[in-house]
């Protein structure tokens, strides 16, 4: 069915089709509408879900964990300060291996306060053990959320699906949605690895551990994340077969004979595509590499795909305050370090607090990347 939906509306629509067992959520700009729309679905009897209007995001994740520990399919939505507030709970969800799925309308972190889109919130939680997907368009957000439920349940890892705050969350797009029944069949039912409510086989969830066991539990959890990529690729394949479209984990746009490329996540991919086309028209051999999955960090794929270029410009929509380049930059350079022949990698931080990243900005970045060098370590695009 062709529909006109904003990012929030599309994700809420997907949630309606997913029909999760329990949703515990708290409103925060720019994700609020997802929660509002879902509440309406609940009160109109369009879903079977139980909705818990919790009193903070921290309690939202705690309630999600409680319900997921009982084997329920659980979802929530948040952004920015809300995601930051539930920070400790994210690690707990990861350690308990619960396949909670969360929509994030990516937004900057205070201070100062800003309600607009950047990747600071999700990237600040990169060590929490959550799968992380970054979407370029509203339709991709819709698709990715459907896939994320299946991926999370197979990998026994929580997953977050990020759509850029306001840029995608509030942007109306023509999307093609799927049939409710098809979605249900695609997802099937979860196979939880434990159920707290099975009182005939009582267990304890979330013990304390001492020096003798903590590291071993973490090693086990890390292995789960290490094994996630094949699951992601399998689900993506199943999705493509059933629904007729899909996105690779890494997409190359006009990179075949490119000597310089820009690596980017999220909505800015669209802007970069446009800029690449402009430069290609002028005969410049540039391309874009779109990264869709940030966690797990797909290092073998990154090595394989990025290794051959002369220069890679990494666009970060977040900053780690005096690390050596932006977050994605540090992860990518780390991955490429061991290659016998590796590209020059340049760090660009753009669009913080929703600052516009216009096609002209993208063109400038591409041209500089093509030139292969710049004066400073990090270029803060568009900062006065």
């Amino acid at each position, binding site marked *: 069915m062709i529909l006109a939906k904003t990012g929030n509306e599309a994700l809420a629509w997907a949630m309606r089709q997913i029909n999760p067992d329990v949703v515990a959520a708290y409103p925060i700009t720019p994700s609020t509408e997802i929660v509002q729309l879902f509440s309406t679905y609940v009160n109109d009897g369009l879903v079977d879900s139980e909705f818990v209007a919790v009193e903070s995001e921290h309690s939202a994740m705690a309630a999600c964990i409680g319900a997921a520990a009982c084997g329920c399919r659980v979802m929530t939505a948040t952004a920015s300060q809300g995601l930051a507030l539930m920070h400790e709970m994210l690690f707990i969800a990861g350690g308990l291996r619960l396949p909670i799925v969360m929509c994030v309308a990516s937004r900057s972190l205070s201070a100062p306060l800003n309600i607009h889109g950047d990747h600071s919130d999700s990237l600040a939680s990169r060590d929490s053990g959550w799968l992380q997907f970054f979407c370029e368009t509203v339709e991709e957000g819709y698709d990715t959320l459907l896939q994320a439920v299946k991926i999370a349940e197979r990998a026994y890892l929580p997953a977050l699906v990020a759509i850029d705050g306001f840029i995608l969350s509030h942007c109306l797009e023509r999307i093609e949605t799927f049939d409710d029944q098809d979605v249900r069949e695609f997802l099937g039912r979860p196979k939880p690895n434990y159920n707290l409510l099975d009182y005939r086989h009582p267990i304890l969830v979330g013990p304390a551990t001492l020096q003798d*066991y903590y590291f071993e539990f973490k090693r086990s959890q890390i292995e789960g994340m290490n094994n996630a990529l094949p699951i992601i690729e399998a689900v993506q394949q199943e999705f493509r077969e059933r629904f007729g479209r899909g996105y690779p984990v890494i997409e190359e746009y006009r990179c075949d004979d490119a000597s310089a490329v820009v690596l980017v996540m999220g909505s800015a991919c669209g802007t970069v595509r446009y800029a690449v086309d402009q430069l290609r028209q002028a005969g410049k051999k540039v391309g874009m590499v779109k990264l869709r999955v940030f966690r797990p960090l797909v290092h073998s794929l990154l090595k394989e795909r990025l290794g051959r270029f002369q220069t890679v410009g990494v666009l970060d929509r977040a900053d780690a305050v005096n690390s050596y380049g932006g977050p994605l930059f540090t992860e990518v350079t780390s991955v490429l370090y061991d290659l016998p022949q590796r590209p020059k990698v340049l760090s660009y931080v753009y669009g913080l607090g929703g600052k516009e990243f216009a096609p002209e900005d993208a063109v400038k970045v591409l041209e500089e990347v093509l030139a292969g060098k710049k004066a400073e370590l990090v270029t803060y695009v568009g900062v006065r």
Partner: protein
Amino acid sequence: MAKLKSWRELPCGAIIEDLQAVRENKTGSWRSRRPVWDEKKCRPCYLCWVYCPDSAIVLKDGKVAGIDYDYCKGCGICASVCPRQAITMEKEKK
């Protein structure tokens, strides 16, 4: 104590499935004093049983039968609540 498991042997998610394993922890080794129960003085009122934080008062056939010295920590609550002074605290022999 049971042999330490390797990471591959751990469950998926931090959970405990074996709820009997706690019995390995014989807290009786903590004692510096031990309760001594005088069967002759006891008229089962069960106060020692209901007030023991470690469930270390042994019951048999509906009557108090003694102390579970494997787990008794020697706190002395039982001795202090017994209305008949049927339990006295003595120094633990090592």
